[in-house]
């Protein structure tokens, strides 16, 4: 398929999937917002999933889900234990990588 034809086909596909794309974009926007808030919270110091949830007004299960995902993608790491819970902190930025 030629480049121009591909472009047209992609445009049609996006049009066909318009509603799903809109819904997924809204989800991604909310997730970006939540991740930003969690990062802001952790910038103040390590926190347990329960503390993150309480401070940000989200269900604890959701806070843990985000923290597990952030850990998977290298944004946070496990820190000291606080009672029955582990705390999480931001992964320090490598100045050499900037």
């Amino acid at each position, binding site marked *: *398929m030629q480049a121009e034809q*591909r472009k047209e*086909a*992609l445009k049609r*596909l*996006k049009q066909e*999937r318009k509603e*799903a*794309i809109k819904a*997924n*974009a809204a*989800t*991604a926007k909310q*997730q*970006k917002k939540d991740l930003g808030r969690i990062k802001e919270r952790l910038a103040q110091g390590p926190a*347990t*999933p*329960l503390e993150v*949830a309480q401070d940000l007004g989200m269900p*604890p*299960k959701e*806070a*843990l*889900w*985000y*923290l*597990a*995902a952030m*850990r*998977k*993608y290298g944004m946070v790491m*496990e820190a000291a*234990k606080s009672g*029955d*819970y*582990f705390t999480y902190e931001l992964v320090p930025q490598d100045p050499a990588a900037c």
Partner: protein
Amino acid sequence: MPNGDTQKFDSLVLGGGIAGLAAALDLADAGYRVAVVEQDATIGGKMIRLSKVFPTLDCASCITTPKMAAAAHHPNVTLFTMCRLEDAQRVDGQVRARVTQMPRYVDPAKCIGCRQCEYECPVMVPDQEQGGFTARKAIYIPFSNAIPQLALIDREHCMMCGKCSQVCPTGAVDQLQTEQEFIIEADTMVLSTGFELMEDFPQRAYGSPGLGDNVISSLQMERLLAPHGPYMRALRPGDGKEPESIAFIQCAGSRDLQLGKPYCSRVCCMYAIKQAMLLSGALPLADLTIYYMDIRAFGKNYEQFYNNAKAMGVEFVKAKPIIAGNNPGGSVVLRYEDQEGGSGAVSREHDLVVLSLAMLPAFAPEEIVPVSAASDGFITVPQPKLAPTLTEMEGVFTCGAAAGPKDIVDSIAEAGAAAMGAAKYLAAQRGGQAA
């Protein structure tokens, strides 16, 4: 692969779990050309998703990964992942299978598995490979030792922002891929389609879509126990608490006439004991309780394994509890009749409850392959004692959990028998000549 293309093999293995891979490798080592058709994005089946195996407590991944790699690199094995069998019939002495290649939306010839697309993708989706306890992206590689190491796009959650295309160093992303149908012709076929868990048990038994954040399935517990699991340690998914009290409810769906599953799933007793022993190591102070109907420790060294668990302090309670509710603190309330202690109706709370869910067939052969399913839904084997891998279709064999609940040991033993049956059939077809 172009639509309508026909490929010829000596044997077609349907299902790339441990039984299918074992059968495929046995046939391939005997010199036969084998096609492995797998509907998942990776081979490895359920076993690659487990933490350890009973009764040896060997690392499941350490056993499965070499088998997966051996199949991927064997010159006589061709893997077809993300492929769905539409139907298979015997035509002119050959099994003629119509297979649909489902789109990855990533060109497998170009993808190098670098995961740059995954890191860049802005959409997070519950990662079912990790029990839903963490996220993956809308474009992703299923897990770190998946084979093949190829990305795929979850079209349902993709917002087509194009970021994956922008960062892909090889231009592999192809949103315009479509399903492609092709034909596989083979002399024999092995059905190794495995099992699923009764994930809808809460709906079936309680009429509720869920029983709370801290009631999980046995496969979810496998992920919590896996070294590369979602939290990299055993935590309660409802809030991240390190659980102090964990309960296992056996026969959740199995041996239950009301749920239409009168059979025993055969592996639940042993994997619950295994999980309890692993938890005992990970959380030495936790109370571990297994609520059981009967303990069925039938295999070699299984009874010793059960006795070891008791000696380690795992509590066994003969009862069939119901989940009575969840406390505000997240603990789960169980209520049961104390059959052995004589205390009548008892309530107990646990931080985390694991349901040992019934095994269900993962494949319904009706209108796809001319073999029948037995009353339990698993593939019928007409000669279960003398030829447990034979099916009703000439030259078609079955192995593993496709024919009924089975543990890994029995699945692999059966895979060898199915491969031997297929090899004998092939040799007979060719006038007694082996490959």
